[in-house]
C-alpha cells in the first residue's frame, strides 16, 4: 500500500463532507426507509446517509441504467424526423458496497462490448463512484465470498473503510482525487492507520468464508451438468414470476424498447425500460410462440445467465453474491 493513495476522514467531518459533496454535483447515498429497508436516494447531509445498510431495494445500477430512458425523439407531423438522445446528469454515488461495484463492473463490460452502448457509456462517464467497505456480513443472504466480491477490487473513484473514529479512504482515480481536493476535510493517512486497515482486511479473511461448499471455479461446469436437473422445476413451482429477482439484481440489464406518442399524436419518444426474463412475454415472438413458456425454464435461464452463459463471453460470473435476489424471493441456490 502506498500511503499517498490513502487519506483519512474523521467522523466528525463526515456531515461536512457529505454536504460539501452534495453541492458539487447531485449526490446519492443509501438511506433508511424503515423496516430494515434501504434505498439509494439524493442526500444533502451526513445524517441522512445510512452508513450501515443491507443491500438496497434496487441496486445503484439505476443511476447508470435508469428504469426508463429516452433513446430517440421523433416527429411525424411533416415527414419523419428523429433525433437520438442521451439523458445524463453528473452524479456521485456514495456508499457503494463491493457487491454493487462488482455489478457495475459487469454492466461496464456488457455495454462497452461492441456495438458499444453510448447511452450507458455517457452516463458512466458522468458518474463518480465512492465505495464503502463491508467489515462484516450485511445479512444472511450474502454470498459475496463465493464470488470474491467481499473485498475492494477496483471499479470506484474513492473507497471508504469505516475504522470506528474515522474512515480510511483509498483514492483510486483522478476524479477521486479531485473530490479530496475540493472537500477540504481529508488528511493523509499515517502508518498506524494503514496497519489498522491491513489488519481489518486480515480479519475479514477470517469472517468471510466461501458460503457455498463448492469451488467457485467449478460453478460453470456444475451448471453444464445441471441443465436437465429437476431443481429448475422445483424453482418454477415456487416462482410467482414477479420479476423482483431481476429488478434487484446488480447485473441484470435486459430491457424493452417502446414508443410513446404525445397526446396530439404528432411526435413522441422511443424509450427503454427494464424488462425481466421472468415475465411471460419476454421470449414470446410475434405469432405467440414463447421460447421459455414455463416458469421453470425462465428461472433456469436466469441462473444460467448469472453462472454460466456470460462466463465465456465476459470471463466472469454475473453474480455478485449480494443476496438481493434471495431476499426478494425465497428461492435461492443453496
Amino acid at each position, binding site marked *: 500500500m502506498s500511503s499517498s493513495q490513502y487519506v483519512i476522514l474523521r467522523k466528525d467531518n463526515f456531515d461536512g463532507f457529505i454536504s460539501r459533496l452534495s453541492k458539487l454535483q447531485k449526490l446519492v447515498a443509501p438511506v433508511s*426507509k*424503515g*423496516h*430494515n*429497508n434501504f*434505498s439509494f436516494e439524493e442526500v444533502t447531509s451526513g445524517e441522512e446517509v445510512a452508513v450501515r445498510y443491507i443491500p*438496497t*431495494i*434496487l441496486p445503484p445500477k439505476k443511476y447508470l441504467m435508469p*428504469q426508463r430512458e429516452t433513446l430517440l425523439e421523433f416527429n411525424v407531423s411533416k415527414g419523419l424526423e428523429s433525433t437520438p438522445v442521451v439523458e445524463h446528469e453528473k452524479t456521485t454515488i456514495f456508499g457503494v458496497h463491493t457487491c454493487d461495484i462488482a455489478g457495475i463492473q459487469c454492466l461496464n463490460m456488457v455495454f462497452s462490448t461492441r456495438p458499444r452502448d453510448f447511452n450507458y457509456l455517457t452516463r458512466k462517464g458522468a458518474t463518480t463512484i465512492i465505495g464503502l467497505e463491508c467489515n462484516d456480513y450485511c445479512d444472511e443472504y450474502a454470498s459475496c465470498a463465493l464470488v470474491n466480491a467481499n473485498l475492494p477490487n477496483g471499479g470506484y473513484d474513492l473507497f471508504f473503510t469505516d475504522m470506528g473514529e474515522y474512515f480510511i479512504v483509498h483514492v483510486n482515480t483522478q476524479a477521486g482525487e479531485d473530490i479530496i481536493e475540493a472537500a477540504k476535510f481529508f488528511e493523509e493517512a499515517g502508518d498506524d492507520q494503514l496497519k489498522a486497515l491491513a489488519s481489518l482486511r486480515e480479519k475479514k479473511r477470517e469472517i468471510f468464508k466461501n458460503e457455498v461448499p463448492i469451488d467457485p471455479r467449478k460453478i460453470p461446469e456444475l451448471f453444464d451438468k445441471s441443465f436437465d436437473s429437476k431443481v429448475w422445476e422445483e424453482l418454477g*413451482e*415456487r*416462482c*410467482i*414470476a*414477479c*420479476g*423482483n429477482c431481476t*429488478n*434487484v439484481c446488480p447485473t441484470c440489464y435486459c430491457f424493452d424498447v417502446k414508443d*410513446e*406518442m*404525445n*397526446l*396530439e*399524436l404528432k411526435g413522441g419518444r422511443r424509450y427503454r425500460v*427494464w424488462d*425481466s426474463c421472468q*415475465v*411471460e*412475454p419476454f421470449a414470446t415472438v410475434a405469432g405467440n410462440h414463447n421460447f421459455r413458456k414455463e*416458469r421453470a425454464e425462465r428461472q433456469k435461464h436466469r441462473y444460467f445467465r448469472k453462472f454460466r452463459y456470460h462466463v465465456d463471453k465476459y470471463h466472469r460470473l454475473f453474480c455478485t453474491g449480494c443476496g438481493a435476489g434471495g431476499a*426478494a424471493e*425465497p428461492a435461492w441456490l443453496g
Partner: protein
Amino acid sequence: MKKPKVAFFDFTCCEGCQLQVANLGEELLDLLGVIDVVEFREVMSEKWEGDFDVAIVEGSITDAHGAERIKKIRERCKVLIAYGSCATIGGVNGMKNGFDLGEIGKYVYGSSYHFFPTEETRPVHDVVKVDYFVNGCPIYLPEFKEVLKAALQGIPYHVPDYAVCVECRLNENVCMYEKGVSCLGPVTRGGCNSWCVNNGNICYGCRGMVSNPNQKGMKDVLTRYNVPLDQIMNKMGMYNRCREKK
C-alpha cells in the same frame, strides 16, 4: 384527416373516472385537437344521434335498462373502451352479488324496494364485446392516455399481466408484508405504478387478478408471512367479486 368522433358514457359508477379525464388539465386541449368529443354528459349539453368511432364506457351493468343501453351503444360504435374497475371487472358494485338481491333491496329501500329493480352486477365485457380495457379504481391517467392513443392509432394495447409487485419494487417501496400488513399486490395486475403502496396504503386489487397466477407460489408467500387465506379472500371480495360466477 377527419377527427374521430368520441363519446363518453357512464353506467352504474361514481363517475370518478370521468373526473380523472377532466384532471388531464390543459392536456385535454391537445386531446381535443385530435378527437371530436360528441357526447360527454358531465361536461356537455350536446347530444349526438349518429354513430361514433370510439365509445368510452364507465360503470357496471346492474339492471336491464343498462344492459339494453350498452347494447345500443355497442351497435353505434366502432371501438369500445371500458374504463375503470366498475366497467372492467365489476369493481365495488360486485360486492352486491354477495347478498340476496331482494334482501339488500329491502335493506336500502324498505318496502318500496320493488321500485328499484336490480340485477347481478356485471362488467361491460360480460354483456357486449370490449376492445380495450383501462383497469383501476380510479383509472391511472398515464395508462388511460396510452390506451386512448392506441385506440386512435388502431393498434392493440396489452394490459400488463404481471403483478403490482413488479412496479412496487421498481418504486422501491418497503413491502407491505414486511411492514406486517397483507396486500393484494402479488395477485393483482400491474399498470398502476403501484399507486396505493407508493402512498403508504395497501393494494386492494382494483385492477383485477393476473391471468396466470402461481397459486402454489402465492400460498408459499402467505405462509411465509403468516397471513390466513380467508383474510386474503375477503379482501379480494371488495373489487373482484364478479369473478365468482354462480
